[in-house]
């Protein structure tokens, strides 16, 4: 487990939104697994922290939930993006890209020094 990175606060919401966009409606467990897979198993997600994050997104109106059946016929609560969620994702993603781009300029070694 040593090499695995904990999820930073705040980025989890973005990951959830992005995952829901690509996968469509998904239950909590599926989301957690998918986030881990997408990160190339580099992220160690404490599954328990996912639920308060989902609740917050739902309270803010970015996702909505409903009970349904999983692929192996278990009852599960499915989450999907709302319209506001789509907009939010687009905005957050571009903000994030900008932040990383700026940070990258600082962190890449200078060409001439």
């Amino acid at each position, binding site marked *: 487990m040593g090499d695995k990175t904990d999820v930073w606060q705040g980025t989890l919401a973005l990951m959830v939104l992005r995952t829901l966009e690509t996968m469509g409606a998904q*239950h*909590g*467990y*599926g989301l957690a*697994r998918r986030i881990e897979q997408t990160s190339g198993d580099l992220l160690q997600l*404490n*599954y*328990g*922290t996912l*639920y*308060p994050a989902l*609740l*917050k997104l739902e*309270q*803010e*109106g*970015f996702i909505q939930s409903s009970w349904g059946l*999983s692929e*192996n016929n*278990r*009852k*599960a*609560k499915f989450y999907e993006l709302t319209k*506001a969620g789509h907009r939010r994702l687009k905005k957050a993603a571009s903000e994030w890209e900008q932040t990383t781009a700026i940070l990258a300029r600082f962190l890449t070694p200078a060409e001439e020094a």
Partner: protein
Amino acid sequence: MRSLRAFLLRLRAIFGSRRAEQDFSAELESHVALHTDDGIRAGLSAAEARRHALILLGGAEQTRQSYRERHSLPRLESLMQDLRYALRQLVRAPGFALSAILTLTLAIGANTAIFSVVNAVLRHPAGLDHPERVVVLNTRYSQFTLDFPNVSVPVYAAAGALKDHVDAAAIEAGASFNVQREGKTEHINAALVSSKWFQVYGARPILGRVFTPEEDRPNTAPVVILSYGLWQRAFAGRGDAIGQTMMLDQKPYQVIGVMRSDFAWPRRYELWTPIALPPTAFSPDEFFNENYQASVRLLPGVSPAQFNAELSTRLWDELRQGAGSKYATSSGWSIYTAPLTESAAGPLRKPLFVLFGVVALILLIASANVAGLFLARASTRSKEFAIRTALGAGALRIAQQLLIETFLLTGVAASLAVSAGPLLGKILLLLVPHHLAEGYDIRMEPAVLAFTAGIALLTSLIAGLGPAFKLAVERKQMGLQEGGRGATASQDKQRLRSAFVIGQVALSFLLLSGTGLFLSSLQQLQHIDPGFNPRGVLAAKVDFSGDDFRSSQPRQAAFVSSAVERLAAQPGVLAAAAIQPLVFDPDDGGSCSFAIAGRPLGPNDPGPHSQLSFATPDYLKVMQIPLLSGRWIAASDTGATEPVTVVDERLARKYWPSQSPIGQHISFGCGNKPARVIGVVATVRLNSLESDTSDDMRYYSFAQGKDSSANLIFRTQNTTERITAGLLSAIAATDPSQAVSSIKSLDTLVSDSHAGRRLIVWMLAAFAALALLLAMVGLYGLISYITTNRTNEIGIRMALGAQRIDVIRLLLGNALAWVVIGLSAGLDLSIVLTLLLRHLFAVFGAGVAVSLAGSAVMLFVIAAMACLIPARRAASIDPMKALRAE
């Protein structure tokens, strides 16, 4: 926006969290099941897969907790929990809750009641727009110790010309009209006003219009604006009243406007007509003829002091241009402004301030009482708090719990008080004589609500913070160990409670001695001799109706003398007379300058000044005023004979210090005709027992003057309804066209003149009784609490041979020491307050020693009784039982 939405959802989630919890449990269940399925597929055993899933979840309970925290608002939720808990606590101890609520309701209710009156009378009389910007002009002659709310026309004109400071200025004079309706004569008080008058008061009509500047000119068509009440009476509230004609004193006036129902200003006036001053009224010669009331609405941001300074500069400039500055300087003349609310409230102002202070004391006493109750309860609940602390409650949480309980109690009390307060305020105004209270409308207003909410908050802080802080600090050593074995409570624990008791005793003493002081000052007032005997004298006012009657001196004289004759013939009537104006009648009174023959006046010197009245021959007999020298007005002094006058002793001394005025000539009334002085009578008080405000007096013969009304007065052996009926028929028989508008007893008029003082005494007595009751309850509670805590100790003492009396002495000694400390603190406060009040009230401060000593003894005895009951009970316990009690 998004976070607001989330907040509202979380707020909603506080109620109905159970279902969400079940829902989340199901979701977690499905999460673990899905994960376990995956584990089994990967080759783990079912048990192992489930264990793995739970580990990765990070613990189901922790997850649930963090989910819960996000789901709703945990801090608020704990507040709601505490509130629910507090409610349960109070329901479980109904005796405690009821006594606390009752105490607080009484205190907050008293405050709300007084504030609602203060608000309506002093802060914001109904119907006026921004009353704080309206000021009334006053004239002062410091050399003559004269100070009155009237000014002359040139002064008013100067005030109105200060355009940088004044929004509007208006002048006003009182008048009255007789209105004939349905065969009856109705007498209506009216105000003659200038056109900007309504703008000054910020009053708008509901129908029609107000006066135009054109209507300020004399000889325009007569118009009238009606009050709402008169409109309802005379026109049944019909909209077509505008444009109709109304007969006032048998002259047609066109109705042009109707004012709103909440506007009745000046109070008790029912219609307004233009004052239409002639240009001569503005002449500089009129500078010192103060016959009008003037009021000014200042521009926003202009302070009365700024306006005063500017007006004074302008007036002195005008005086210097004319020739008046010399007289103004020698007489100490000046003009100053007073806020409208202050001058309008008049005699009600001081009593209201005193009562306001009194209810504040009551509030403090009640807060101390409730704090004491809480402390007593807290000690019985110490185990509960110890357990809560042991389970992890922080100091703040426990303090929060206690504060919430006080907030809950004061909240209930405040809502009860808000509904009862203004009603009590209305009742309070009913205790005040009509002429002072009429026209004030006490209502539930935002200001009253805000005030009540504010004092409720203050009360709960005073009552709750002490106990809450104490418990929060003490919670560590408190509780399980001390409460476990009933030792005598530590000194420290009693200190706060005894402080509350000392405070209560001191404040009650203050109220009690204050009551004593005002009571003795009232007695002092009642013993002041007004110079006449009001007992058994009735006065009936007749406002002459009919223009011809009003202008005919012989008709008035004939009517009055014949009415007096018929009255005197009534059985039970000892003597009858007529007088105008009547002493101690707040609606009446008149004064003017006069000249003394042979004493020329300097330029602009208005000459001597005094009050005057017109009387019939038996006036002295009815009033029992002694004649000092010469003779009184006789039936032979008629319109056909030489005008005569009788002066009072003070006027005689002032202008003829070394000789008799008899035979001298002074002005007849306010005119230029001379009248011969024929006698000197004793000086009487004219309108107040509190202070001698009378400004000398001249009496003239009723048969030689004319007026718009007359007071028929008569002394009776027994004032019965038979006499009243006889009086009405006597007047009706004299002249059916004239009617009595009001009958008053002179006794009532005199006692009404110190109604403010009486109001204070009554209210203070009621409040002092309340304070005494509260203090007693507080003391009783404290002693019972202490004795209960010391049951064990008392048992040991008695087992070792202490007698009952020793135990009682032990318990009483402590309590009475507190009482004595409280009394001495109260004594100091009382003395300071007496000195302050002496400045505020004339005839005040006699019997200080008696009322202080009396209150101290009374309070001490009552306190001793309140302590003795629980102490005796404690002393009669069986020592064996006491020792086994725990």
